[in-house]
């Protein structure tokens, strides 16, 4: 079977929606900048790219009209490079990688760019025209449940205390702050200078985060709950991109390969505890790779909320010391569609940097799903 590798990863800085430095940047143009930089940095021949697959959670307005094709044109890719947009909410761009991997194994192309993008400033969560089915809402209201409520449900059922959530959130900021200061985030970032913006590093990290500060916040979703804005990922603007190739192609062209995709999986779960989605998906992916969580050296587990991240770590029996070494979404931000490509690209890079054998990238998905990718050192 054809091996598939990650041969490059780049992303925009992540900035707070509505307040940060990327509020005036169109998401399609931002993503095109990242794609352009990824091509330059990896040295891949643009004409060899089969398809650009873009994950986006709310593909409308400036993210609409099959934005993948538009990003390709904005990035001046050859006219022959096709484009498809995919929506699996937060799992969108990890799924873009999976689609690319599947196509490569089907011998339907050698090089793909998997992109993720979300401007949560310019396209609101839920989109501009949310129109749920009254019939489904009557039958299964959890199908449309707000993410904060699902985080409260997980906290309650898995008995994740507010204290534990805050400890986890603080650690995320501490790790991200240290990583930023040590320059560990610099290589992946493509500075954005569109429309008078000038953002060259992540803006969501709170370098002065403290337990006292977190303890002072009011519950964000339920007056009697434990989840606060401090233990949730912030609304974020950002874009990310990963170069996915057949191993043969990458080797032949001397591309900077970071990891091989060992296995992939998606799995559904109950919508009202969607945060637990990574457990089933990761178990499937690990089983397909013939591994257990003890074999994993590096984990990128998306921190949609501290409660669900902690519940997943517990159920998957992950070693906390291997999880999100450079910080997670609570500190870095979570531009919905862009996160999957970030954590997969990041897991591959960290695996190479830390010298481990296997990495796991996984995330939860609204509506009740999980997605996972197991990577192997090359």
């Amino acid at each position, binding site marked *: 079977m054809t091996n598939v590798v990650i041969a490059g990863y780049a992303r925009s800085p992540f900035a707070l929606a509505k307040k940060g430095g990327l509020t005036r940047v169109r998401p399609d143009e931002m993503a095109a900048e990242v794609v352009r930089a990824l091509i330059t940095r990896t040295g891949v021949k643009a004409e060899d790219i089969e398809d650009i697959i873009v994950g986006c959670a709310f593909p409308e307005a400036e993210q609409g009209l099959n934005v993948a094709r538009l990003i390709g044109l904005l990035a001046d890719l050859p006219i022959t490079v096709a484009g498809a947009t995919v929506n699996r909410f937060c799992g969108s761009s990890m799924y873009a990688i999976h689609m690319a991997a599947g196509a490569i194994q089907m011998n339907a192309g050698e090089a793909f760019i998997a992109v993720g993008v979300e401007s949560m400033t310019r396209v609101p969560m839920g989109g501009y025209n949310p129109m*749920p*089915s*009254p019939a489904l809402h009557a039958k299964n209201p959890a199908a*449309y449940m*707000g993410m904060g*409520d699902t985080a409260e449900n997980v906290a309650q059922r898995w008995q994740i205390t507010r204290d534990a959530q805050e400890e986890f959130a603080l650690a995320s900021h501490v790790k991200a702050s240290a990583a930023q200061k040590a320059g560990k985030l610099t290589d992946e970032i493509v500075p954005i200078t569109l429309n008078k913006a000038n953002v060259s590093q992540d803006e969501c990290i709170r370098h002065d985060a403290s337990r006292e500060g977190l303890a002072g916040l009011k519950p964000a*979703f*339920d*007056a009697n709950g434990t989840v606060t804005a401090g233990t949730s990922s912030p609304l974020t603007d950002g874009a990310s991109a990963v170069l996915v190739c057949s191993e043969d192609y990458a080797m032949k062209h001397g591309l900077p390969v970071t990891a091989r995709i060992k296995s992939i999986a998606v799995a559904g779960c109950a919508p009202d505890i969607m945060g637990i989605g990574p457990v089933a998906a990761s178990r499937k992916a690990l089983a397909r790779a013939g591994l257990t969580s003890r074999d994993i050296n590096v984990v990128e587990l998306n921190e949609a909320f501290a409660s669900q991240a902690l519940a997943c770590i517990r159920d998957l029996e992950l070693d906390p010391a291997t999880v999100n070494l450079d910080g997670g979404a609570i500190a870095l931000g979570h531009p919905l569609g862009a996160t999957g490509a970030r954590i997969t690209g990041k897991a591959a890079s960290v695996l190479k940097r830390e010298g481990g054998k296997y990495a796991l990238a996984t995330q939860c998905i609204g509506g009740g799903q999980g997605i996972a990718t197991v990577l192997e050192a090359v």
Partner: protein
Amino acid sequence: MASEIKSVAVIGAGVMGAAIAAHVANAGIKVKLLDIVKPGSADRNAIARGAIERFKKIEPAPLMSPKAARLITPGNTEDDFAGLAECDWIVEAVIERLDIKQALYKRIAEVRKPGSVVSSNTSTIPLSELMSDMPDTLKPDFVITHFFNPPRYMRLLELVTGPDTRGDTIDKITKFCDVTLGKSVISCRDTPGFIANRIGTYWIQSAMVLALDMGLEVEEADAIMGKPMGFPSTGVFGLMDLVGIDLGPHVNASLARLLPKSDPFHAINRDVSMIEKLIAEGYTGKKGKGGFYRSSGRGADKVKETLSLKAAAQGRLEWRATVRPKIDEVKDAKKDLKKLVGAKSKPGQYAWGVLGRVLAYAASLIPEIADDIASVDEAMRLGYTWKYGPFELIDKLGADWVSEKLAALSIPVPPILTRLGKGTFYKTEGSALLQFCSDGTYRPVKRPDGVLLLEDVKRGAKPVLTNKSASVWDIGDGVLCFEFHSIMNSLDGDILALLEKTIALVQKSYKALVIHSEDLRAGPGRENFSVGANLGLAVFAANLRMWGKIEGSVKEGQKAYQALRYAPFPVVGAPAGRALGGGCEILLHCSAVQAYAETYMGLVECGVGLVPGWGGCATMLARWQTAKDAPKGPMPAVAKVFEMVSTAKFSTSAAEAKDLKFLKPEDGITMNRYRVLADAKSRALALVDGYAKPEPAMLQLPGASGRVGLGMAVEEFRKKGVATPHDVTVASHLARVLTGGDVDIVDPVSETDVMALEREAFMALFRTRESQARIKHILDTGRPLRN
């Protein structure tokens, strides 16, 4: 012809300077705000920038819309001084030190462009002193423009000019401050404290000193020296807390220095140890730890406390729980002020002791401080929020009565009062308002050019139509003015009936209609265009279970408003102050609106457990659905209107009303309260030729699917503890109206369809016990009930 002022600079980013810059920006004019370079700061504009940043936190807000901040450019007096050459008006608002001001004027004289106006906002330094060491080139263009704090809300501007000031300069600055900034420009002589502070300081100081001398407590003094006399309801001690107790000694000292020894001010000006102690301990009023009043404890344990004047008289600062004094004379004063100030009791003696002195003082200052009494009354009304000026108060009491009572107090009767004898300071002749002058003659009270006041129209005239809640006046040139005069201008059956008659009359014999109400004595932010439907009547009907009657009045309102919208002539709404609920809806149905800048519009029905029932939902949906800056599709307009109406959001200015689309982009805003009616009339006349009534709007609404989305959002608010159970009920009815009821997304919906849903929801909610409780509560207490 004076050239116009198009760019302004304010030097000094302190409280006043920054707020003046904010107000210039409110008027849509570019303004530079300069201050010194803060030593050790990396940002050389830190002081000015910090002042602009603080606007967001200041209450009441200095800016009418956050967007106005973009017109203010922060700078510093080192790097940006040359830029003053671009400015048509340079306002100095630096510290009250003559040497610093004079040095600054020399620098300004070197860079400013010829013909630009330069002014000082000083309140304590005479013009003659400011100009004593001034380059000759600057003198013809230099004036004092004295704003009152807070400049956005206080409508008085005292203008002091000198013998060398050019006429062109006076015209230019007067026009700008009047028309563009919306101030009443009162020309003052160059005397200490000008008009308002001269009398106002004397009033405050007398009230404080006499309260201490007579052994009154703070609450008693404030109950007497406030509302009964038409003074601010805070009373004098409450007022000192509001403006800052630390300000008093500075103003007193400057007046003491400048006023001649014979001035009565010296007799009541003495150092009060209580004031010194309060300032030393940080009790400077609301901006500090509190003052004569303070709050202690938190949340439910919060209690209001008052400084004990008895303890203060013995050298101690002690606060005790605030009491509400019961003073019979204060109650009686509602009918006749003389019952208070003529009483022999302690409250009566205090009331007259202060008021008598103040009235005599004011009367003794004519013509020293101003040419005419009307200017003095205007200055006190607009600079100190007195409902009546001193001469109006004398007229209320009777000049001969005042003279007699002054003599009894051994206060010399001022010559102008003696000359007036038994007459009045103001009288009406035909439609003219005349004022008594110091030479013993009556002359007309002059309004600035272009001002049209309903009170002037009404003087000596009869309404074209009238009933107990509204009247219609002929304001000339074929335009009628529809005026509300019910309680708080609330809307009732009489108003709707008169509206119907008026529409017929205009159609037959006139060209256009303006809807306007006028309460010029209401004080900043307190005027009512209309507070909406008269809920008292509705509650009465509900108690008798007269549901048909209530539904009938909803229908009547819809019908009347529709008739306004589709009238064959232009209807221009001219609101000032609160335009809430039905008062907002009537404006939504006008062809155009010319709003006073301080107009507060909103559909606040959900606050009383109802939904807008007179076409407000339908109109706002149409506005948001056709807005060019809103996202497309069936939901964005619905979501936006739902958010605004369910939270009873109202605008805090006319500028914000545009952002919220209560006003249309082409609707006008008038900065000067006195010019609203004239501007509205011009607007109406401009629309007459070729006027075509609007086409009914058709809406695309999402039906049940959209309702599920809104319901989920409300449920989130309930969980967060933000929405109460009855909020959820009200919101669900509102959601049904705004989503179009049972329509499918492919069905076009007319405004008539939405109005039928409005009626249905209104009636369903009115029948609930919770909504009725909300209505009763607001009628009883003036505050919303959260149930």
